């Protein structure tokens, strides 16, 4: 049976845990999405934009030098960094902006952590002529100032969020408050497979284009399915996007890489699936980093895009069923993965994706040369120059 079910559940996870004022809006969204996704014209519009505007399909690149250097399995890199705006986020932003347009909503709000989703949303809105307001935590504004400038250039208004930990979690709280206040006129373009139903399903459906392409590409080039797929997981949209079309292929092992920050034992990390417990935040039930009283815990990651205490409910389901496994990579390991790809392949990855790369590199070393590992290179690293320089003790 396809998931989620009618209540928006993936097993015990997902659902709709929102204030009453939003319930009618979620029902409206569900109906609009059901109607749109049943129309071939909607999908052809989406695919045309993905192709002509976002530059899809993105290549599946065989990282020979890296693979050779590691001396084990072959690493194939799904180049989402080459998509327009530099990350996979554009797929979802285009899909939802088209839906918002079809629903007659002209005011779009979004949240952003690293700024990649904010840029993608601002881009899609500029192209479709929609008003765009992006909520971003003050701490993230500081560490991702380049993306803030990009959003402004694209005509979006960036609203700083000073509450709580001043990161992605609080940006979502503030976007939700805006939505609660302006629900009749506003579309909330959520950036990951989180939030209340139907968001986790909808965002997955738009991001699944990554996995569909990767599947065709690996079959065409290698004549077989990969042995492993590795992707980083914050909210989890790039991971679900590449995992989803392989879910039925039991032989393909799916590995999600969470941000272990300064180490799981320090408590300063963002590894919800590895170190959290089921709870309810931002409209759905999933794994959550929380204290024993159910208060959401502060998180840490060197990458703003992974710095989030929750995770998409479908990942929670995949974890519990054992279909996917989840591992942690620390800040310093991610930096290692970052430098490894820069030097071996001349590709500068986003710090988020560098978590997946580090893990894939470790895995490749232990596996046979004949085996294939696909890594989702979810974004490019230009936005992270300042953070990486700081971490390496270099003054720019």
């Amino acid at each position, binding site marked *: 049976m396809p998931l989620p079910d009618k209540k928006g559940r993936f097993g015990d996870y997902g659902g709709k845990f929102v204030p*009453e004022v939003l319930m009618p809006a979620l029902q409206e969204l569900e109906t609009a999405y059901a109607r749109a996704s049943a129309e071939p014209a909607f999908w052809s519009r989406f695919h045309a934009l993905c192709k002509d505007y976002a530059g899809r399909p993105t290549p599946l690149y065989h990282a020979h030098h890296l693979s050779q250097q590691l001396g084990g399995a072959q690493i194939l890199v799904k180049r989402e960094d080459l998509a327009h705006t530099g990350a996979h986020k554009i797929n979802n932003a285009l899909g939802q902006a088209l839906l918002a347009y079809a629903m007659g909503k002209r005011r779009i709000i979004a949240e952003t952590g690293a700024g990649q989703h904010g840029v993608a949303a601002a881009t899609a809105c500029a192209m479709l002529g929609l008003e765009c307001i992006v909520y971003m935590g003050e701490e993230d504004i500081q560490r991702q100032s380049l993306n803030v400038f990009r959003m402004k250039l694209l005509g979006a208004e960036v609203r700083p969020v000073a509450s709580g930990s001043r990161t992605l979690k609080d940006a979502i709280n503030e976007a939700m*408050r805006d939505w*609660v206040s302006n629900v009749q006129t506003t579309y909330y373009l959520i950036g990951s497979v989180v939030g209340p139903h139907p968001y986790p399903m909808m965002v997955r459906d738009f991001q699944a284009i990554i996995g569909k392409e990767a599947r065709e590409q690996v079959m065409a080039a290698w004549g077989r399915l990969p042995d492993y797929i590795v992707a980083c997981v914050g909210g989890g949209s790039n991971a679900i996007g590449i995992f989803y079309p392989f879910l039925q292929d039991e032989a393909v092992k799916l590995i999600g890489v969470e941000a272990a920050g300064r180490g799981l034992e320090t408590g300063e990390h963002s590894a919800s699936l590895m170190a959290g417990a089921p709870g*309810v935040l931002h409209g759905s039930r999933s794994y959550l980093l929380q204290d024993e009283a*159910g208060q959401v815990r502060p998180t840490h990651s060197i990458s703003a895009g992974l710095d989030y205490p929750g995770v998409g409910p479908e990942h929670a389901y995949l974890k519990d069923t054992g279909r996917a496994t989840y591992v942690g990579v620390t800040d310093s390991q991610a930096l290692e993965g970052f430098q490894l790809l820069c030097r071996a392949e001349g590709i500068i990855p986003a710090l988020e994706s560098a978590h997946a790369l580090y893990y894939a590199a470790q895995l490749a070393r232990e596996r046979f040369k004949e085996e294939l590992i696909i890594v989702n290179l979810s974004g490019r690293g230009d936005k992270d120059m300042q953070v990486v320089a700081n971490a390496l003790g270099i003054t720019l």
Partner: protein
Amino acid sequence: MSRISSAFKKGRPAFIGYLTLGYPTLEMSLEAAAVLAESGCDILELGIPFSDPLADGTTIQRASQAALEGGITPRRCLEAAALLRGRANIPLLFMSYYNPILALGQKAFCAACREAGVNGFLMVDLPPEEGENLEAEAKNNGLDMVYLLAPTSTRERVRLVAQHSRGFIYLVSLTGVTGPREALPPELEQFVARVRPETSLPLCVGFGIAGPEQAKRVARVADGVVVGSRLVQLLEEPQPLEKLKSFALGLRKALDSIRG
């Protein structure tokens, strides 16, 4: 008839006062609650703070954060409610978000509410579609689980909430977060009129109500008025308890002036 529903008397609009437990301190919030109970408040709504109160405006966000920094937990809120039960002879209603209750355990929470003398609760982010388990536990413990309606609620949803809510129905006056407003929406009366035929439960209106004039407008059509953020703000002023008392008495007087 539950203790909460018996707080509504014909021709006498109820005054429901909200406070965030643990703000500015636990002792102070208890003192404040006791003052409200002696000053014409009919039901005390006690907020159990949550780290991510996404339906709340700046006042209650700030209060929740400060209370959490002061070490408040759901368990301490339950202890506080038990203390208050000894001092205030009016119904006590918890208000919270779902996660702290889930973390404590729904069964344990409801049993602890009953033992503490709490009469019911409302969960801001738990619509009836997801509330089945908590509703069952509430019922087992003789507690009223109050659901909310908003101006955006469709007729179908009004009926759903009317079917599931116990004690009263909480009507959110506006599409927005908590916090006092200059003016309430013009559609407020229509909203109440739209819900009225669908239920025999008392209808209480909250969100945005800042003072006696707005309370009077609400009380002309509804059975109760909820004042929250405004009370929390009074606790931030000098001589907070005196101010709270005179505000509550003023509100009571305003409500009584329109009786009949």
